[in-house]
């Protein structure tokens, strides 16, 4: 990851789009670079809450950080301890800044609901059900989630950049 990818503008060659959120699982707003995948992930055993890095060797994002990223994945899988791992990542500042799913996932939502109830902070967790729109978000580079307007605004940049 380069620094320029983390920072704003430079939207030359961008394909931007607005996607309607189907379900708001946890409310909030955020914007940032996307880490997208079509593969499900078990947070427990697949993600290290102490540094925010994907550690599942079978997962295509293995080795990448989700810290302050908008994590786009179809759904969680595997261990029910995923909620605790996500919570611990959020509490230690290594968690994603927002999550976009293709299907409702209780284990992921629960980690964030607990973050809200016990720590007074939150990140948005939303579902985009349309497979084609979801796929666009997986490959997009940068997004903004706003659960009040129920919109995800995304940019698919060729190389680097963010929202203009």
């Amino acid at each position, binding site marked *: 990851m380069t620094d320029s990818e983390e920072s704003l503008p430079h939207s030359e060659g961008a394909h931007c789009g607005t996607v309607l959120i189907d*379900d708001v*699982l946890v409310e909030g707003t955020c914007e940032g670079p996307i880490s997208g995948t079509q593969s*499900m992930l*078990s947070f*427990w*055993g*697949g993600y290290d*809450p*102490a540094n925010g890095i994907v*550690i*599942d*060797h*079978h997962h295509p994002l293995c080795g990448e950080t989700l810290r302050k990223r908008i994590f786009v994945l179809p*759904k*969680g*899988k*595997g*261990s*029910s*301890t*995923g*909620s*605790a*791992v996500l*919570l*611990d*990542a*959020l*509490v*230690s500042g290594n968690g994603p800044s927002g999550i976009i799913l293709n*299907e*409702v*996932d*209780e*284990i*992921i*939502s*629960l*980690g964030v*609901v*607990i*973050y809200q*109830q*016990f*720590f007074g902070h939150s990140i948005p967790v939303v579902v985009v059900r349309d497979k084609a729109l979801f796929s666009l978000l997986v490959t997009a580079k940068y997004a903004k989630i706003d659960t009040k307007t129920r919109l995800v605004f995304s940019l698919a940049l060729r190389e680097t950049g963010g929202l203009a």
Partner: protein
Amino acid sequence: MNAVELSNYDRDVLSGKYGEAARIAIQVILEIARIQRAQKLIDISKVHIGGSIYTGQGSLKVIESLADLGGKVRVPTTINSISIDRQRWREQGIDEEFAGFSERLAKAFESMGAIPIFSCTPYVFPDAPVYGQDIVWAESNAIVFANSVLGARTNRHGDFLDICAAITGRAPYSGLHLEINRRGEILFEMPDISDKDTYFFSILGYLIGKHSGSAIPVIDGITEIPSLEQLKAFCSTISTAGPVGLFHMVGVTPEAASCEQAFGGNLPVRCIQVTREELENVWLQMSTGRGSDLDLVVMGSPHFTLGDCEELASLVANRRKNEKVDFLITTNRFIYEQAKDRGFIREIEKFGARFSTDTCLCMLNERIIGNAKVVMTNSGKFAHYGPGLINRGVYFANTADCVNSAVEAYPVLEKPKWLLV
């Protein structure tokens, strides 16, 4: 946004009549009920706590807060494996600080009245859930076992909801609690395969979990009733490879006396023929070990059962593992004591293997296994998670090959009999 219908009891809990811990707990449950579009909450009569593994300060703080606020369980509640072996962590060289946090987490659950069985196989304990019973169980393999093999009803709950349900006795009426959501969706047709062993069921579970996604699989063509150990292996890999909470095995599981019953009158949305070729591919994929000087063999994820102990005891009788190889088995104290009484532990320890209780293989990390480079297991669940947890490949073999490998001090992996035509 849909509103969840509240009972008088729910309203009282929300008002704080049952204490602050219960008030927070029901709020969390109601949030999840809203997410699941549940219309109401239901009574649940058993809970298995999954969140007893220490994963960090955040989750420890949540559980200790609930205990400090006076939270007490209202229904029989058991605790999953914890991060340390309470009796042996010092001799295992576990970091004192880590052990301290793990112990505090376990204590917090115990102080709320949960029973410290410290096991990921709560279904082998007395008073297992029964057919049709609404429960809240966490721990992915136990969820699948409870739903599919016992016919009890639980969703694939995350940690925290388990303790919230235990404190309030309530859970969202959604998902697998409703009969209509328990019907099969994908049909898997089995080829004619003989000599099926536990290893086979681990691999089959992984294959089916990968294909199923969120859909409910129906497996047709298993002609002999699998053993408890085979079902345990199957449940653990089906839920490792995918988000599966329930499967039906025709002629084996209680909601699948026939294929028609398993689908509840629906037609399958997909039909998949399981082939020998694909089983062979999954078998090859699951084994990721490298290197020839074997350092460590691990077993017991999910926890070793009495049957597992008996099988291993007979395989190791009058043999001795190579000194260079460490051999670790995890189980719970309940099984350990029975296996001790039956002489299995003595036989296995004579071979040179060691047991650890309270904890399980999923707690292994680089710190614990030290310099062990070449690792082998008979657990499909650990074959999947191991590489991420200990940062090295893991050989996946059947129990007999694991024993042979420990004796020879190099990995012996024979092609399974059921793959030979």
